[in-house]
């Protein structure tokens, strides 16, 4: 399965990848403001027209105040929360690696946005004929045997593209070869069941704008118990409700019959009691 390895220690913050993404995907530029986000970071956040973003983080690197760059984009999860969430399979994991989106079946419910633990999918809020947007790992290029546009553009090889298992081994090799220069954690190796985008960094990954406190279980593990119980609940209710109504209605029927019998008895008794006298009429 294809994957990307992004090593923030090699990133110089040139944003060539951000531009390459825009040109390949024909995304318009965006009106931005200086210092709207963190320092020189521009734009402020991912958006419907910005699918990848270099974050500019002023933080401490080995005791010294420094600028560290991170790259935000879709993580192309192995078991994506967005694909679990999407009611119509508009978002799908492909066997080649990319998680792709098909607007022609999307309902625009935005459940994918709610579900994605990495806050990736964006929605075109200002359009009537809207869609969800996000990085596609350049699925179209990958299908033609090319690497994604951002990898191609990166001048320092901070982004490399390849087979996930190989890149994972490479990531660990880099940490082992230079243990003082890396946080000993490959972000994306295990997060949410693992992802096809792997990050290396020399500061804690959260300081680069990546989500923290994520579990190692895929999102589907959280909804599965409820979803798996559906047929049991349906069958149980079907049997239970039918049985209860049977018992209750039968009992009521018997009670009604009993009453009817008693009433008849009463009438009969009354008739008997009245007969000898017969004065009432």
């Amino acid at each position: 399965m294809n994957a990307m390895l992004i090593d923030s220690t090699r990133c110089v913050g040139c944003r060539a990848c951000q531009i390459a993404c825009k040109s390949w995907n024909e995304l318009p530029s965006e009106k931005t403001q200086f210092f709207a986000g963190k320092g020189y970071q521009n734009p402020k956040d991912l958006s419907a027209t910005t699918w990848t973003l270099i974050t500019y983080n002023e933080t401490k690197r080995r005791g010294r105040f420094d600028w560290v760059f991170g790259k935000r984009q879709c993580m192309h999860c192995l078991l994506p929360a967005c694909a679990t969430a999407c009611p119509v399979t508009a978002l799908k994991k492909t066997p080649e690696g990319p998680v792709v989106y098909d607007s022609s079946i999307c309902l625009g419910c935005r459940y994918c946005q709610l579900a994605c633990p990495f806050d990736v999918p964006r929605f075109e809020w200002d359009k009537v004929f809207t869609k969800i947007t996000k990085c596609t790992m350049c699925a179209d290029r990958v299908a033609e045997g090319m690497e994604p546009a951002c990898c191609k553009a990166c001048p320092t090889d901070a982004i490399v593209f390849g087979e996930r298992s190989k890149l994972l081994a490479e990531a660990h090799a880099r940490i082992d070869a230079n243990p003082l220069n890396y946080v000993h954690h490959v972000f994306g190796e295990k997060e949410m069941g693992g992802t096809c985008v792997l990050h290396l960094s020399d500061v804690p990954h959260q300081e680069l704008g990546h989500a923290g406190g994520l579990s190692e279980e895929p999102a589907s593990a959280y909804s599965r118990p409820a979803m798996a119980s559906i047929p049991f609940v349906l069958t149980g209710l079907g049997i239970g409700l039918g049985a209860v109504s049977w018992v209750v209605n039968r009992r009521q029927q018997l009670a009604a019959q009993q009453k009817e019998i008693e009433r008849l008895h009463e009438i009969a008794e009354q008739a008997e009691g009245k007969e000898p006298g017969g004065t009432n009429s």
Partner: protein
Amino acid sequence: MTDFFKRTSSGLLVLYALAAFGLLLIVYRFVMGLGAVTNLSDSYPWGLWIGVDVLAGIALASGGFVVAGTVHLFGANKYHSLTRTAITTAFLGYLIFIFGLIVDLGRPWNLWRALFNWNHTSPMFEVAWCVMLYTSVLLMEFLPPVFERFKLTALHEKWKTMVPWAIVFILGIFTFAMTDSLIWTVVVVFVLLFWELVFRAGLSPRSIQMPLLMIIAGVMFSTMHQSSLGTLFTLAPHKLHPLWYSPMLPVLFLLSAVMVAPAMVIFESIVAERSLGHRAHMNVLSSLGRAMPWLLGIYLVVKVGDLLARGAVSDALSISWQSFSWWGEVLLGVVLPFTLFLSQDLVQKRVGLLTAAALVVLGLVWNRVNVAVVGMIDLEGDVYFPYWAEIFITLGLISLGILGYRLASLHLPLHEEETAATH
């Protein structure tokens, strides 16, 4: 009649105005896009509409299945006078809710695709199917008064014979869509067919007027639908505040929906009595009121027990907007009405019943808004607050619902006192 209009016209006018303004804003939304009428954003993709129109709206429509089930399946005939109004409320509620959903969806013209593109793992897929299928069951349940009103006896007869088969078909398809398993589908279809045979063979007595299978299906779909709305949020463990995030969310949503059903019936009957002049059956409402402490109590125990089990008590005791909102929901919406409903005096009186029931309804809406909005807010980032147009669209939808209910009430034989009077 004239003085009834004199009495209510100002209130009605407000409703008409709100509904018209809401519709106007909805037109504007479809010309300008969601961004123009909402404060929703990529950080807050769901807001007021999901909280109030969808989550609370569906929960408040639970009267339909709770009352129908209690009367027809559990034999509580004393509540019979409430079934038609409860079913009508539920049906109208669902129609309004679907309308609201179309406003909220970004690409509503694709709604029908959920019928053909199946994702068995998606809670939203379950929600979408429940909405569509339960609305059709509600339509079936709603029809008899219409048949009666327009004297469509032949159609009514057809309805009686067709409904059970339609139900078996719908539930069969639903089971298959949810499980992707033929075995489960066969099991569910078999169970339903078995009961239908039992009913038809006269082994179990039944009322010819109400196909029991339809009532059973109503309860099954509602159980799935109410709980699936909670399941939606189980996918967001990293976003929903721990005060509300729980694997038990589906159960809590179901319990609270059942709990609000009698409260909503009480509330509605007393309000309708004032505005539409249908005498409320006070003894029936009081006996509903006496059931309330049980329902509220069970919900409270499960809710607090869940909080304890998850170790989230410290979140409830910390000082934050979220914990404040949690206490509001629990104290005002559950604990206070619980104590009120316990009082024998109060349950006999209209004002008392109305107050306590209104609190339960308020508490439920508060809970759903907490889950969809308050619990999602990240105080360190941008904070979402609904845009005025969002609020007015919601108000417009609610007004439309009330007006629709009024129309149905005036023109259909929903209230038993009238039908009884003609006999």
